[in-house]
């Protein structure tokens, strides 16, 4: 029990490129990785969260290099060099781990800050972990706490309603144009990273299909595969416009890719169903005059930025508020954990004193003949009174809050354990 800590290890979209994330060993549900985790002997409680942007493990275990190695091979398999893995992996302990978990739950660590999906994913992951008996009292409590952090952040701040990124802004606009985007199709012109990100978000919102038109078809095919879409050649661009609804353009072309005169006839074929163009290329791919066509909406990167900006003013204030809630809840959980660790120490101390008393009594009493029952009892009472008085000071020291702070109490526990030789395994 002592020496065990809450450990959070993981990779996310900030530390790890997507090529690595998608090569990680966990793509097949929760059952198999959770059972594998349980097999690692030194882990007492565990929990695993796997989304497209992050893989995180929460453990209650005694940290050791051996453990980290085990986890690394669990996460990455043998496909990536160990040293490289260590670079991607972040590890937090105890309070930092709790804080990170709360940040994730509150969607403050998400790619799109404030998006609501993560809480559902967290709950789902927890459901699996508890079904396979991986979580124990500590993680149960911690995870439930994280849900209530998320709920508080959602109700007490407006973070959820504020959009942050370009791709979120694009989705926001698409929703104002199309209402429901579930039956809409997206065309990516060029396979740039920004376009990919925006498409990812649109796919997350459930668009029906993704079509990729790229000059090098191979790269287009590759990207299309990621979204289970299809790739088309660049020459088919105009004919594709008849079928798609949202177009994200990000080619490196020095000249315009689509002009007003290209799109005007398409609108007749489309029977004026709206087209939403998003031009995130610099220099721009799309003729600014497209916006003058009826039922055509064109936004370039600056227009989108202004949407983002509009959302941001409120967002920053809300994020500060949300972080404060997270900090506060981390503190209160930390206090609870402290109690958890002080109590066993007190118990161990009492047990040790009682043990000594009993041993000494057993040694001494047989040699004292002629004692009445009453006198024997008096000696026992005296012994326990002495130990109680001796222990009073260290116990008061352990329980005292005057010095406050968690680091302090850990030090206190350590001191008491060393002085009284309570050792690692006090059982």
């Amino acid at each position: 029990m002592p020496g065990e800590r809450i450990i959070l290890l993981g990779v996310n979209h900030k530390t790890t490129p997507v090529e690595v994330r998608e090569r990680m060993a966990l793509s097949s549900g929760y059952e198999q990785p959770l059972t594998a985790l349980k097999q690692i002997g030194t882990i007492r409680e565990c929990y695993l969260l796997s989304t497209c942007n992050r893989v995180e493990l929460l453990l209650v275990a005694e940290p050791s290099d051996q453990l980290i190695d085990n986890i690394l091979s669990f996460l990455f398999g043998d496909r990536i060099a160990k040293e490289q893995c260590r670079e991607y992996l972040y590890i937090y302990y105890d309070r930092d781990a709790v804080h990170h978990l709360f940040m994730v739950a509150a969607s403050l660590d998400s790619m799109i800050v404030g998006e609501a999906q993560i809480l559902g994913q967290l709950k789902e992951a927890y459901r699996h972990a508890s079904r396979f008996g991986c979580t124990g009292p500590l993680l149960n409590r911690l995870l439930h706490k994280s849900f209530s952090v998320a709920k508080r952040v959602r109700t007490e701040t407006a973070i959820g309603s504020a959009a942050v990124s370009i791709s979120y802004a694009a989705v926001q606009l698409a929703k104002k144009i199309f209402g429901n985007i579930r039956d809409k199709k997206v065309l990516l012109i060029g396979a740039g990273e920004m376009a990919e990100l925006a498409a990812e978000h649109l796919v997350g919102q459930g668009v029906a299909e993704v079509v990729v038109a790229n000059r090098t078809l191979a790269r287009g095919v590759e990207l299309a595969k990621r979204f289970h879409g299809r790739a088309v050649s660049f020459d088919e661009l105009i004919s594709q416009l008849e079928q798609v609804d949202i177009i994200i353009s990000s080619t490196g072309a020095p000249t315009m890719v689509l002009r007003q005169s290209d799109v005007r006839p398409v609108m007749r074929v489309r029977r004026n169903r709206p087209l939403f163009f998003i031009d995130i290329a610099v220099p721009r791919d799309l003729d600014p005059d497209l916006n003058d066509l009826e039922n055509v909406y064109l936004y370039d990167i600056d227009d989108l930025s202004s949407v983002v900006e509009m959302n941001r003013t409120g967002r920053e204030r809300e994020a500060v508020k949300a972080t404060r809630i997270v900090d506060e809840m981390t503190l209160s959980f930390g206090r609870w954990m402290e109690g958890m660790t002080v109590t066993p120490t007190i118990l161990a101390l009492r047990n040790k004193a009682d043990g000594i008393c009993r041993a000494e009594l057993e040694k001494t009493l047989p040699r004292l003949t002629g004692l009445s029952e009453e006198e024997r009892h008096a000696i026992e009472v005296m012994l326990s009174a002495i130990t109680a008085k001796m222990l009073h000071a260290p116990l008061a020291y352990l329980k005292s809050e005057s010095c406050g702070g968690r680091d302090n109490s850990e030090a206190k526990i350590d001191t008491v354990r060393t002085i009284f030789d309570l050792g690692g395994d006090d059982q």
Partner: protein
Amino acid sequence: MSEISYLLFQAVMLVTFLACSTYSVFFVSQKNRVRKVARILLVSSGILQTLYILSRYQLVGHAPITSQHETVVVFAWATTWAYLSFRWRYTVKNFGAFVSLLIMFLLVLSSLASREVSELVPALQSWWLPVHAGVSLFGYGFLALAFCGGLMYLLQERELKSKRFGYFFPRLPSLEALDQLNSHCLTVGFVFLSLGIVSGSVWARQAWGTYWHWDPKETWSLITWFIYLIQIHQRFTAGWRGKRAAIMAILGFAAVAFTLWGVSYLLGGVHSYAR
């Protein structure tokens, strides 16, 4: 009876005013609790309007759709129930705020007109009266909804095209939703409008012996009818939608308004005992 009728009308005005202002508060604050109250108020207003029309029926002894006042009240009533029936099937964000304003406006107009009980010309004493006028006005109700939707569409489209997002952008629904509203309300409204014209012409045949005799109101109804016909036709064939459809809905409603008021005041004719 006239006492009750009078009180009911005051109640209608009060409750509609409350519904309208609650919808406005909801439009500004976007708090769902407010919307719930607004809905209850609007339904109450609809019920009170129905009661008022019934009391008026008792009072004048025939379908109360002959005087200017009565006609406009029935118009407001039809708009209210058209909205409530629409609301029952579709959700369009903040539509109620616009529609309740229009209903309030119509009721204020009706309160300005004379509430005198007018004698019914013998030619009008027929059960065709409620059928013809009721159906036409119900059609107008739906066309009024399309008008509100058209206004909202133009507002939202302007925000999206100009890329300067102001007060309305987050408060108005998506263009698609508004376009669907337009299509739905126009179709229903157009069917009622057609039925109104057909029933009127059949009635005219019975009362005056000819189906059609180019009375100004008839002419203008026909013009209105053609405006909507063109629009619906174009939507189905050439895919007219969006801004163009919104503008047409507004133009069409202007024609409706002229048929209802302009004709009676400016042009006269057989329909203008409805003064």
